[in-house]
């Protein structure tokens, strides 16, 4: 119960580190969109929010998405709102990008590209990890 006491002592001022992990491609499944919807809500809470894209999740950020042909909403522009919501810790795994033949220039928003060895340390420092 030590965590609980610690939490109670610090009261409402405690800030937790929340990380949202995206590993899935957009459009084939809804997880990318519904994770983004969580992050936008989470931004309103005074917590330390970071968003990670690895594996096929890096494809969510690809520029030039045009969904008119598949009849689905193009939500890639919404990632640009993360900055307005003060979500500034956005990490992309370098190896996942490279495996897909993509570079930082292919992405819709500025991100911090980290090698797996560095991203591992960032992930290990979180208090809550939400994946979808």
């Amino acid at each position, binding site marked *: 119960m030590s965590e609980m006491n610690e939490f109670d002592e610090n009261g409402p001022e405690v800030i937790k580190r929340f990380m949202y992990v995206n590993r899935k491609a957009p459009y084939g499944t809804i997880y990318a969109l519904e994770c983004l919807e969580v992050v936008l809500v989470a931004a309103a*809470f005074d917590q330390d929010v970071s968003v990670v894209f690895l594996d096929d999740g890096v494809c969510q950020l690809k520029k030039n998405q045009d969904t008119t042909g598949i009849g689905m909403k193009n939500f890639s522009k919404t990632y640009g709102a993360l900055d307005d919501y003060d979500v500034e810790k956005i990490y992309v795994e370098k190896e996942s990008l490279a495996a897909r033949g993509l570079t930082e220039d292919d992405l819709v928003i500025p991100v911090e590209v980290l090698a797996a060895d560095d991203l591992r340390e960032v992930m290990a420092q979180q208090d809550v990890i939400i994946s979808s």
Partner: protein
Amino acid sequence: MKFAILINEGPFTHQASDSAYRFTVAALARGYEIYRVFFYNDGVYNSNRFSEPQTDDRNLVSLWAKLGKEHDIDLVVCVAAGLRRGIKDEVLEDGFRISGLGQLVEAGIQADRLVVFGD
């Protein structure tokens, strides 16, 4: 210690809801508090009161509702995920409530552990 549970998949199709249910029962048996169970993505389907599995199969909707009642667990169905999937008050099983995504974030803040079950 307080646990929060996030369920991302509907009943039957994926094992997520079953695993989360058994985990929750075990956590209660261990004396932990379940701060909230949040149903997101297809997880919202776990609250559909019309679900009627074969008689020799488990009924996850009733199981959750019953567990929630017995242990006073807050069972929250995401309003946004529910709306697009047609999970609204008209089909909601007693014991669940519909609310916003803030309830998930708040559970992450208040609980000591958050465990995600999905596909």
